[in-house]
């Protein structure tokens, strides 16, 4: 559908059967203002999954990119997409981000976990193994952004050594994906991570009401999350809040989460919403019930903030497939105003970005937006508002600012005062669209040294069988 060659986009695509994971034909079916992925497996019947609901329409949410094939491929085309990942040379985008799982251990056991972590089945990779994997990823993907993930990566006492190692290999933007428990409890650990060269902390943050954390994570966590933000800020580490969004659990808290993030700026650099996907570990009931599509999230942000942010602020991405995400960048004024500074309307639809150019710009932009400038005095890392409590509802309500901007003020403030609102929706066995998968720019470097698109790596069939992830750390055999 995201066609660059000027052809009328087709709604025919391919997917997998969620039961047996065989490749089958699929189609995007438009019914009213909803779009479904419909498909049929000869052995296991028909499936229908919501993809998109309401405005902005899926049709207008486009940002075509010419396909760019990786130069160095660790996979060979044999069975066809998505069975040959390495990446294979039929992949149509270069990685902008590589994720490495540095442990399978976890100190939570969340009911929803894309990595189905905490089974204790595999030992942590050694630093030598990590070095080998990162060198391989660098050789194939170049100096793209690096995500340290797991399990819970902060369970590794030597995580600062992993960061140093990654810096030495040439990664310049390194983030850790974390629940924040250790960052809240261990200030020295936070300092060591920062000193080692960590760029940003992606902090699991599902709401400002602990009832939400108890449902999604199994316990109350808000105090720990806020302390983690404070400890990061004191060190000069930027934080991005990452809510997993589940309809009926925290979809009425979207505005509150955003306001909380704004109150914690400039330490908090943005909020990156992730509507739930059904892979890894997830509650075993009707999966579509919890889905929340990107346009619904955009409208929710506008409604729940009273127009502080608007649907028209958001743009499709220049790197990954258009239907994977949205984003907008803002500047906060010293008195708490919020001004959108991202791409203008009208650039969304047909501004073509070359695949490789889109990747390079993404790597550089992400680094600017999601990390704090280096060598900031710790006093500048404190929240804008002089509020002793960081709980939502205390402090000024931000107001939307429009109008002309002073260039000198902008340049002085921009490095610290930008705030990004974004969302990414991952694919699972029910809604997988192979066209989107081939445009993926986030790859996991697997234990056997292959680059696999994130959604393919985590994809899990109905019976719990992984497409690529095996319980013993090896890849599934197809």
């Amino acid at each position, binding site marked *: 559908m995201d066609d660059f060659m000027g052809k009328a986009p087709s709604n025919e695509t391919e997917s997998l059967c969620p039961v047996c994971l065989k490749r089958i034909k699929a189609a995007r079916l438009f019914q009213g203002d909803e779009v479904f992925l419909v498909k049929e497996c000869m052995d296991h019947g028909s499936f229908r999954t919501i993809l998109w609901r309401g405005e902005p329409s899926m049709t207008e949410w486009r940002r075509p990119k010419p396909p760019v094939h990786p130069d160095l491929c660790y996979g060979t085309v044999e069975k066809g997409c998505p069975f040959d990942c390495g990446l294979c040379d039929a992949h149509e985008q270069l990685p902008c981000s590589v994720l490495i799982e540095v442990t399978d251990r976890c100190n939570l056991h969340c009911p929803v976990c894309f990595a189905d972590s905490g089974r204790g089945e595999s030992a942590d990779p050694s630093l030598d193994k990590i070095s080998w994997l990162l060198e391989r990823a660098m050789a194939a993907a170049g100096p793209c952004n690096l995500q340290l993930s797991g399990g819970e990566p902060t369970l590794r006492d030597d995580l600062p050594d992993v960061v140093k190692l990654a810096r030495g290999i040439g990664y310049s933007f390194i983030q850790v994906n974390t629940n924040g428990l250790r960052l809240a409890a261990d200030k020295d650990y936070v300092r060591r991570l920062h000193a080692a060269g960590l760029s940003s902390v992606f902090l699991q943050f599902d709401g400002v009401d602990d009832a939400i954390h108890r449902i999604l994570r199994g316990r109350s966590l808000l105090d720990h999350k806020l302390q983690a933000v404070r400890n990061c800020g004191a060190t000069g580490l930027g934080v991005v809040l990452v809510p997993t969004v589940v309809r009926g659990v925290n979809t009425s808290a979207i505005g509150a989460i955003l306001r909380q993030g704004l109150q914690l700026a400039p330490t908090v650099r943005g909020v990156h919403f992730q509507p739930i996907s059904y892979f890894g570990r997830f509650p075993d009931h009707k999966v579509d019930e919890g889905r929340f599509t990107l346009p619904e999230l955009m409208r929710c942000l506008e409604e729940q903030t009273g127009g502080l942010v608007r649907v028209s602020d958001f743009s499709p991405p220049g790197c990954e497939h258009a239907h994977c995400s949205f984003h907008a960048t803002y500047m906060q004024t010293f008195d708490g105003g919020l001004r959108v500074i991202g*791409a203008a309307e009208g*650039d969304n639809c047909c501004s073509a970005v070359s695949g490789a150019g889109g990747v390079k710009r993404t790597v550089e932009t992400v680094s600017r937006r999601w990390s704090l400038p280096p060598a900031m005095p710790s006093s500048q890392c404190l929240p804008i508002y002089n509020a002793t409590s960081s709980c939502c509802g205390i402090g000024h309500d931000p107001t939307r600012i429009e*109008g002309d*901007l002073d*260039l000198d003020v902008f340049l002085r403030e921009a490095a610290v005062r930008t705030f990004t609102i974004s969302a990414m929706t991952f694919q699972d066995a029910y809604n997988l669209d192979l066209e989107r998968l081939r445009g993926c720019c986030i790859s996991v470097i697997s234990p056997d040294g292959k680059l696999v698109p994130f959604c393919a790596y985590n994809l899990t069939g109905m019976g719990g069988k992984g497409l690529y992830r095996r319980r013993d750390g090896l890849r599934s055999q197809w």
Partner: protein
Amino acid sequence: MTEKIESKNASGWICNRCNLPLELQKIRLQYFRVIFALDLPACPGCGMILIDEELATGKMAEAEQVLEDK
């Protein structure tokens, strides 16, 4: 087209087309969603605006980099 007399202020520049001295005017520069307001030398006749190299390669280039989107 301008003829440079002095390089430090608008009164040093003359528009070659209109033969009028440039004046500092309130100018609005738009880049994507952001409009910057600043005072720049401009011709009162034809409206030509002078952006000197220092501004273009300095502050404006820096602003463009900040605003560059993914």
